[in-house]
């Protein structure tokens, strides 16, 4: 188990474990990728193997007003929801990690709960409430719902960023005459910025992917991409869904690359924490 001399039995066994791990990784990744060749199919039906190559489904996807509207809706909902989640998540993380609050652990559990509880419960609880105040099918309704379930993601990443360095920097700033806002603005925020950005991107990705709340709280005019995909899935199986899916997959990976770059920047910066103090 540690690269030292071992007997043949253990070497064979550890090779077997490594092989199993690789097989599991293939099982994890490969099935999703079958969509890619199918999206370039020339058939009208999902057929494997495709009988020819074409980009017609991407063309129909690009021409589809339904998809255009859904993508626009996903942006109109995802961006404000992620912004609200980020502002509130940062506030919550600051209070719970740095503040002197009672029941710290319980509070943290409460803040994370919306992410862990099955969304169907929240959906059937929110529906009648929002119906009462006329929020069903409106942007604010779904934005607030998504903000609640994505706030935990920001809370988690920002809490981790805050725990990464000692509060000494903030105490130092205060002894140097910075009030709480200026301490946050000039010391805390620069130190946690990568965590905030990563949290924002996670929240955005989550909102783009979320189906159940969207199913209950959006209308045909405010419906998001996952809801449109879902409705199409239950009616037809043309390769246009595959094409849409590949586009979404690409967008998700692009967002994650952004998050990774932000995270790597964080690690570089944390190597020189003094930089954060100076500004």
């Amino acid at each position: 188990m540690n690269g030292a001399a071992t007997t043949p039995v253990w070497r064979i066994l550890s090779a077997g474990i490594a092989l199993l791990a690789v097989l599991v990784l293939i099982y994890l990744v490969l099935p999703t990728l079958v969509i890619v060749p199918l999206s370039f199919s020339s058939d009208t039906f999902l057929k494997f193997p495709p009988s020819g190559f074409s980009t017609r489904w991407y063309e129909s996807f690009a021409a589809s007003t339904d998809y255009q509207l859904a993508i626009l809706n996903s942006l109109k909902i995802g961006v404000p929801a992620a912004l609200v989640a980020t502002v509130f998540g940062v506030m919550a993380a600051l209070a719970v990690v740095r503040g002197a609050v009672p029941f710290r652990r319980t509070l943290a559990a409460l803040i994370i709960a919306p992410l862990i509880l099955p969304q169907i419960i929240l959906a059937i609880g929110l529906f009648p409430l929002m119906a009462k105040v006329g929020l069903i099918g409106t942007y604010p309704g779904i934005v607030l719902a998504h903000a609640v379930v994505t706030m935990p993601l920001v809370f988690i990443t920002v809490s981790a960023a805050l725990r990464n360095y000692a509060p000494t920097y903030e105490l130092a700033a205060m002894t140097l005459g910075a009030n709480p806002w200026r301490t946050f603005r000039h010391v805390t925020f620069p130190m946690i910025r990568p965590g905030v950005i990563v949290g924002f991107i996670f929240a955005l990705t989550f909102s783009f992917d979320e189906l159940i709340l969207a199913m209950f709280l959006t209308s045909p005019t405010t419906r998001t991409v996952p809801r449109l995909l879902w409705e199409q899935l239950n009616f037809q199986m043309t390769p246009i869904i595959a094409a849409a899916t590949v586009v979404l997959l690409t967008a998700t990976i692009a967002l994650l690359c952004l998050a990774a770059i932000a995270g790597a920047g964080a690690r570089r910066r944390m190597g020189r924490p003094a930089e954060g103090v100076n500004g």
Partner: protein
Amino acid sequence: MLLAAPLTLLALFFLLPLLTVFGQSFAAPDGPLGTYARVAGDSALRYSLIYTFQTAAIVTLAALVLSYPVAFLISRAQGRWLVIGMVLVLVPFWTSAVIRSYAWLVLLQRRGVVNEIMLALGLIDRPLRLANTDLGTHVAMVQIMLPFMILPLLSAMRGIDPSMLRAAAILGANPWRQFVNVYLPLSTPGVGAGCVLVFISTLGFYITPALLGGSSPMIAVAIEQQVSRLLDWPLASALATVLLVLTCALFMLYERLNRRLAGAGEGR
């Protein structure tokens, strides 16, 4: 006060809806506990609850067994291999469950990829029924849940000081005993976190079972059906309350266990 705003958001759009669900579940014409009596009396719903629990247990166990070697391998990797391993886990983690379930449908349906390949290879002469079976749905759900198991395991394993294994080795433990006596106990926090996460998520699983089906609807699917097809909000709310209570109980049990483990050591 920093907490005021986030707590208000939580109160209005999280706690209040949960209370609403709770309240609705008692709003039946046939007395306050009427809906619960109907859940208890309906054998299909009863079976759905049991089936959901069984599925959660199976998926959790399978995910744990498959994830442990993967997490172990990645925790040992360095440089480029570590990056590749993390990407292979994180990309599926962040890929929409709708997309991943759709892929399984494409693979498993009657004229899907798996059947076509097996037909072409002459392994079978008629397409097998793969979608709408428990096996097919479980295989898909395990695949979708794997990252939720791998990531907590990985974080626990990366925290294990390599000198622990060296110490065990020099004290006379062969690789098997190094694993059983030292590595496994030190990785239990990750095992616990992963199992709780996967179990809870599977209890509330909607997308994959709704798309692929199985011998019975999962609770989340049953709730959605009650609302959208039968418009029976009280019954849906009663089922949701059951799911809520179970999830909370599991989560609290886990928190307590976690706290005890943390209190017992890990003092490095």
